[in-house]
C-alpha cells in the first residue's frame, strides 16, 4: 500500500474478483489521493478493467471493500455512485444530440433547465467543441466523439473520474494530442482521475502514480520515475520501457563481477556489492544507458559485434552480439554525429554501475 500525500479519496481494500475458477483480481489494496492522476497499467486480461468496473458498480466484488470519500460503496447501485466514466467505445447515445448526451446526467439529477444549459455549454468549452450541440454522435469523428464522452463525464462534477482505455481507437498523432489535453484538463480541474491503459508510454506521460498489473496482481506501485529507474521485477522492467536482462550464475567476483550466462559464455562488469560465487543473479539494464568505449578501455564491459542497426528517427538502436547466444540492445541519440557505428563493426561497450539494477525475480 502506498501512502498518498493527502487524505485518500478512494480506498480499495483487499479487493478480489473471481469468475468461477478464473481469478481476475487477486486481493489488491490501494489508496488514491484527492486530485491524483493514477494509472492502472497492464496487458490485456491483467484485471485493470475489472477493477474499474468494480469501482463503477458494474461488477460486484467477490470479497473486499471499495470506499469512496469515507463511505463503503459496495452495496451502492451504479446510478447512485456519482462517478464519471469514459468508456473505451465512448458509449454516446446515438439517438440523442450532443447536447442531450451531455445533459443526460444533469437531467437524471433533476437540474433546472437554465443550469443545464449553462453547464453543458461550459463542458463543451472545456473540450473545445462549442457549437456542436445539435450534432448527432454519428456525424462526429472519433476524436470528437471521445471529447464529448469526456465532457459528459465531467459535467456533473463528480469527485472521481474513471477512464477505460479511452484513446485506444485513435491514431497515434491524435492520441498523443489527446493525452496532453486530458492531462491539461486534470491540471485545470484538479479532479481525481483513474486511468486504465496497456500503453506504457501513455502511462508515463500522464500519471502522477502508476500501478503495474499482471494476472490480477499489483506488480509495482510508484511514480513514473521510480517505475522506470527502479523496476521491482522482470515483468515491470520489460513492460515499461525496454530492458536488457543479464542472467546467470556468479563465476568470480574480484574487481569485477563475472557471470556465466546461458551458453557457457561469461560477461564481466564492475559491481560493488559482494555476491557469493555460484549464486544465481539477474540484472536489468536500459539500452540508453549503454555507450561505446575505446577498444582497450578498462572501464568497458563487453566486446561485441553489431548485428543490426535500426534507425528510429531520433535514436539509433543497435543489436550487439556479445557471444554466441547473447544479444545486447543499445540506444543512442542520433544527434551524436560521428559516433554512429555500422553493421558488422566490432565494438566495445560499457555502462555506469548505477545504471545496472539487480532484480530478485
Amino acid at each position, binding site marked *: 500500500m502506498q501512502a498518498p500525500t493527502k487524505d485518500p479519496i478512494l480506498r480499495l481494500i483487499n479487493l478480489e474478483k473471481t469468475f468461477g475458477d478464473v481469478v481476475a483480481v487477486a486481493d489488491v489494496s490501494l489508496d488514491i489521493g484527492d486530485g491524483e492522476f493514477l494509472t492502472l497499467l497492464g496487458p490485456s486480461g491483467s484485471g485493470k478493467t475489472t477493477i474499474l468496473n468494480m469501482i*463503477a*458498480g*458494474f461488477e460486484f466484488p467477490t470479497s473486499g471493500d471499495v470506499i469512496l470519500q469515507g463511505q463503503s460503496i459496495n452495496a451502492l*447501485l*451504479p*446510478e447512485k*455512485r*456519482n*462517478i*464519471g*466514466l469514459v*468508456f473505451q*467505445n465512448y*458509449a*454516446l*447515445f*446515438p*439517438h440523442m444530440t450532443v447536447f442531450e448526451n451531455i445533459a*443526460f*446526467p444533469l437531467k*437524471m*439529477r433533476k437540474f433546472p433547465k437554465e443550469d443545464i444549459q449553462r453547464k453543458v455549454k461550459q463542458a463543451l468549452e472545456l473540450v473545445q467543441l462549442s457549437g456542436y450541440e445539435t450534432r*448527432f*454522435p*454519428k456525424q462526429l469523428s472519433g476524436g470528437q466523439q471521445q471529447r464529448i464522452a469526456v465532457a*459528459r463525464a465531467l459535467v*456533473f462534477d463528480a469527485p472521481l473520474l474513471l477512464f477505460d482505455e479511452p484513446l485506444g481507437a485513435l491514431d497515434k498523432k491524435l492520441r498523443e494530442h489527446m493525452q496532453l489535453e486530458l492531462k491539461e484538463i486534470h491540471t485545470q480541474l484538479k479532479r481525481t482521475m483513474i486511468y486504465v491503459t496497456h500503453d506504457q508510454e501513455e502511462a508515463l506521460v500522464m500519471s502522477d502514480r502508476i500501478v503495474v498489473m499482471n494476472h490480477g496482481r499489483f506488480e509495482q506501485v510508484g511514480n513514473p520515475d521510480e517505475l522506470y529507474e527502479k523496476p521491482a521485477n522482470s515483468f515491470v522492467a520489460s513492460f515499461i520501457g525496454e530492458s536488457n536482462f543479464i542472467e546467470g550464475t556468479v563465476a568470480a567476483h574480484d574487481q569485477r563481477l563475472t557471470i556465466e550466462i546461458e551458453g557457457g559464455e561469461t560477461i564481466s562488469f564492475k559491481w560493488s556489492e559482494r555476491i557469493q560465487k555460484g549464486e544465481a543473479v539477474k540484472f536489468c539494464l536500459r539500452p540508453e544507458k549503454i555507450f561505446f568505449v575505446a577498444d582497450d578501455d578498462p572501464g568497458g564491459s563487453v566486446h561485441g559485434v553489431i548485428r543490426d542497426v535500426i534507425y528510429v528517427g531520433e535514436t539509433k538502436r543497435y543489436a550487439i552480439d556479445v557471444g554466441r547466444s547473447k544479444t545486447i540492445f543499445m540506444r543512442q541519440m542520433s544527434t551524436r554525429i560521428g559516433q554512429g557505428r555500422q553493421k558488422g563493426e566490432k565494438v566495445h561497450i560499457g555502462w555506469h554501475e548505477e545504471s545496472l539494477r539487480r532484480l530478485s525475480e
Partner: protein
Amino acid sequence: MNYEKNLSIGKVLLGILTTSIFVFLVIPTILAVPMSFTETRYLAFPPEGFSMQWHQQFFTDRRWIEPTIFSLKLASITTVVCLVIGTMASLALVRGVLPGKRVLHLFFLSPMMVPLIVTAFAVYGMFANFRLIGTLTGMVVAHTIIGVPYAILVITANLYRFDTTLELAARNLGASAFKTFMHVTFPLIKPGIIAAGVFCFIESLDELVLVLFLIGTTKLTLPLRMFSEIEFRITPTVAAASTVFIIAAIGTIIALSFIERKEKKIGLKE
C-alpha cells in the same frame, strides 16, 4: 477479352431470369386492382369498362364493413398483445437466465412451423372449454400465438445487436434500471418493435385458417368474408376488397423503409 464477354453473357442471363421472376411475383399480386374497376358483374380480365361501383359497395355494404372493422379491431389488439408479451419474452431470452433456454426459444418460435390447420384443430377443443369460440378474446389469443414468433424473431435480433455499454453508461450517469430502459434501451429497439408490430398486424389481418375454425357462426373477419364469397358467388367486390389489402401491403413496405432509413441515420445499421 473472351473472358469478359462470358461474364457479360452470364450477367445478362441472370438479369433476364430475375426480371421474369420479379414479373411473376408482382403481376398476380396486383392483378386484383385493375379487376376491381370492371363494369361487369363477374370477374373479367382484362376488365371491361370502368366503374367504381364495386369499391363503393365495399365501403357501403354492411356485410363488408362489419367484417372489415372486426378484422381491424382484432389485428390492432393482437398487435399490442404480441408486442408486449413478445418484448418481455425476448428480453428474457437475450438477457435472462432460463432453464433450457435453447429449447424454450425454439418452443416460442414453433407456432410458425406447426401447420395452421393442425393448430386450429387442436386448439378448438380448448377454446370450446373456455367458451372462446366466436369471441374477440378467443381470436386475439389465437392470433397472438402465431404472431408472437415474428415479434420474437425481430426483437431478439435487435437485442443481440444492441450495444450494452450504452446501458452501462446510462446507469453510471445516474439513471436507474427503469429509467435506463425508458431513455436508452427502448428508444433504440423501437424501430425493431415497430417492424415486429407491422408483421403481427398484417399476419392477423390476413389470417384465414384459424379464423375458419375458431370464429364460430356469429362473426366474420374480412378474409373469411372474402373466402366465402370466392367459394360461392364471386363478384368483383372481392377484387375491391383485395385492392384494399394490396394498398395496405404497399403502405406497410413504405412504413418499414422509413424505419430502416431512420435506423441508418442514427447509426444502428450499416
